[in-house]
């Protein structure tokens, strides 16, 4: 294993993040605050409580997931797409680096950035609502697994994309709708029975449900199923990346 290369890629990617630290920090703080103003205060004042939890506090896990998932995807896809776009990928391909080391470097950095933003949102939220975390280890595990798995997805998107438009295609057309319809701002039990069944086909439901359970002990689906879903998703992404590694798809001619 070329640990030196992994560290070099990780450090280089993190440097990009630190160059724009103010934006990296302020953007999630601002957007989270806006969500609290719009959903927590304006709409929340009419909903009051969901299953014994104030609406403001109820949406915190969903809000964290929303930002973390989007950032993990965008950071990882940008991280590997940018060298392709600039042509600097020649250096990665000609270095004594295995593809798995490239993945660890880029995905590790993207996941770290997403994790940082997740923590920032969590801290910001604590200023607006009374937060309680009943299962802190499970919360950390869900958060880290989400950062990693969606960074893997972002990496795949970055490898697949041939232009900047394609980079934003999957996050905008697939991921965003799935997150908004995945129980970020509501409990599935609030939906009519038919839609409750339909919603169960949305993989993000399991993610948000499990994460919310780690906060309040409330879950739309069994926690074991949530954990299985996130692990299965991570495994799927790893499988696709393994295939890319074997075939050199869209990287090595």
């Amino acid at each position, binding site marked *: 294993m070329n640990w030196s290369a992994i560290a*070099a890629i990780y*450090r280089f990617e993190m440097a990009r993040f630190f160059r724009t630290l103010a934006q990296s920090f302020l953007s999630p703080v601002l957007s989270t605050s806006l969500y609290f103003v719009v959903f927590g205060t304006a709409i929340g004042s009419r909903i009051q409580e969901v299953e014994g939890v104030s609406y403001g506090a109820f949406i915190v896990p969903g809000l964290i997931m929303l930002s973390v998932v989007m950032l993990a995807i965008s950071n990882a896809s940008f991280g590997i797409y940018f060298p392709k776009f600039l042509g600097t990928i020649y250096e990665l*391909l*000609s*270095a004594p680096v295995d593809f798995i080391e490239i993945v660890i470097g880029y995905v590790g950095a993207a996941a770290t950035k997403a994790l940082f933003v997740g923590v920032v949102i969590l801290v910001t939220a604590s200023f607006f609502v009374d937060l309680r975390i009943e299962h802190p280890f499970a919360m950390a595990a869900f958060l880290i697994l989400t950062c990693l798995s969606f960074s893997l997805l972002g990496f795949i998107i970055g490898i697949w994309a041939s232009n900047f438009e394609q980079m934003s295609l999957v996050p905008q057309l697939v991921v965003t709708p799935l997150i908004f319809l995945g129980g970020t701002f509501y409990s599935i039990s609030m939906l009519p029975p038919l839609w409750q069944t339909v919603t169960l086909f949305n993989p993000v439901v399991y993610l948000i449900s499990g994460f919310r359970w780690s906060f309040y002990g409330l879950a739309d689906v069994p926690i074991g199923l949530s954990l299985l879903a996130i692990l299965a998703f991570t495994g799927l992404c790893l499988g696709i990346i393994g295939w890319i590694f074997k075939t050199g798809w869209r990287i090595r*001619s």
Partner: protein
Amino acid sequence: MTTILSIKDLRKSYADGFEALKGVSLDIEQGEILALLGPNGAGKTTLISTICGITTPTSGTVMVGGHDTLTDFRAARRMIGLVPQEIALEPFEKVWNTVRLSRGLFGLGRDDAKIEDILRKLSLWDKRKNAIKELSGGMKRRVLIAKALSHEPRVLFLDEPTAGVDVELRKDMWEIVAELKQAGVTIILTTHYIEEAEAIADRIGVIDKGELLLVQDKNTLMAQMGKKQLEVMLSEPIQTIPDSLAEHNLMLNGNGDALVYTYDTHADRTGITTLLNDVAQAGLVLRDVQTRQSSLEEIFVNLVSGEPA
């Protein structure tokens, strides 16, 4: 001499059937400078990319320092440095960081003194804290060289290193190449500038349509394939070449004041003595004579066009 790079029957075909490399075989000795000449699309960059791991070969083998570039790619690639044809650098990154990244990618630990030494040699030390986007084109090319040298390679590929750079920087590059050769680095460069190959290479390889047409010692190549011309300058211009000189196949220059005689330097008789006697007998008065060797460029053009030099 030790062979440091050995290419055997290297082939690269694409899905559409295009054959970029058609069985290239080549041995390169340690410490030599090989210039690869060829027109656009000849396969020069594909050959370099395949050796360096950017492109996967369809068949054939490449050994670098005894290491197979596919089965033992880590050891093989550690020995190789690549300066690509295009300026590919992250614009917002600082010079120091980008060179440090390259060293790390090749599995070497942090060595600030080494990076400082490379940056100083390439006149980049003062620019080390500058973002890449703030540098001129020539400076960016130096950064590419610094990155390629950051892991102290034994074989350096320079793909069109002086394309689009000014004369001064080109001369600087040649000096850098000479210094690297002195340090024992093997250099393979592709170039469109024949004068560059003529000035710095030990051997010349000519590639066209994916095939290596020849690889030869530069001086031998020029001696074997080069024509020599004798220019006989006359005191008074003439309108036509006298009939008595017809057998020499002379050409008259544009001003009519010089006769150009082409001959083979390896022939038993060059015919120069007879020519000069015939010129004198024709009543022409000589002002001066000079000879001129065919340039590599002429040799190259003739080779690629399939005509004898």
